[in-house]
């Protein structure tokens, strides 16, 4: 029981040192909204409607970068990770090295399958 109380005390101490006020919350919301809006502007406007930009690797990179920025704002501010102790931040984020490795691994594998084991019928689009 005393352990439980200590933990609650820890949580109380924790709210003192940092965090976001209401203004900060809405600021992050508008950043997320603006980034999403930008994605829509590119996808609907520049690509679909006006046809200025073509779909491809460059555009996909832009989308992924915008997504990662959004992910950063959600994790850092909404999930409050930025205000935790650095040891905890490292503890939670270091495991994603494996995901980076996994991305490289699977995409290379996919490329290989495309060129070496492609046996499904293809029909040209009229």
């Amino acid at each position, binding site marked *: 029981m005393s352990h439980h109380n200590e933990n609650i005390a820890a949580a109380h101490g924790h709210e003192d040192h940092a965090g976001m006020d209401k203004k900060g919350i809405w600021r992050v919301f508008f950043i997320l909204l603006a980034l999403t809006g930008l994605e829509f502007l590119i996808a609907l406007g520049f690509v679909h409607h006006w046809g200025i930009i073509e779909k491809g690797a460059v555009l996909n990179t832009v989308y992924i970068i915008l997504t990662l920025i959004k992910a950063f704002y959600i994790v850092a501010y909404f999930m409050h990770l930025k205000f935790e102790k650095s040891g905890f931040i490292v503890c939670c984020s270091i495991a994603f090295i494996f995901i980076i490795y996994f991305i490289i691994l699977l995409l290379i594998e996919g490329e290989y399958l495309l060129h070496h084991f492609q046996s499904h*019928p293809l029909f040209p689009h009229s």
Partner: protein
Amino acid sequence: MSTTTVSQLDKVKDGPWNGGKSPWNLEYGKIMMWFFLVSDAFTFSAFLLYYGAQKFAQPTWIDADKIFQSIPGIAESGQPLVFVGIMTFILIMSSVTMVLAVDAGHRNKKDEVVKWMLWTILGGLCFVGCQAIEWTHLHHQGFWFGRNPGTGLEGDALVEALAPYFTKDISYTAALQFANLFFTITGFHGFHVSIGILLNIIVLSMTLNNTFERRGTYLMVEKVGLYWHFVDLVWVFVFTFFYLI
């Protein structure tokens, strides 16, 4: 004998890792929620990565602009991305109301916690509803687990059935993989949202029962908040990989 000098060994160690207190200054349950979310992120990464690997392995793929074109009740086709835009906005909005609930919990304001939790639950329900409409629409078009509009057809009929969804070459396998992965991944995400709504309702009723008031802390709101933001985070990635790329 002098008593003022203390040997190095006898000094009381009071660093964060020397016991007696939480080294990360975090409550146990919150740390466990974080670790669960990290593992859950791995599950979603595996799903999305398999989607990426399939896309790389197929010479052609379904065009997102062509398959997601309807706004239910307004336009049957010709409006790519608009409906999913509304869904994304709903989920971001409900994430914000969740942070506001957590913020109110920090200040021990029960009424505000209740208000923002209600908005969050409403947002979650709207999102799941939109998801259901989207699934129904695709199901009517002939997409489902292991099935696409070309299933059971051959030759010209097959090409004709699948042509509306492709810009480049047409492949039955690619359409099938797309259908399987779309329903699996958005389904798994929708399942998470549903669980999140359930957790939010439980926490809301606990708030109304004054459980947290008596406990002296609204930490539980913070924990379900973490889960709820994670659901939003996953949607950001699902949205990019299914709808944009």
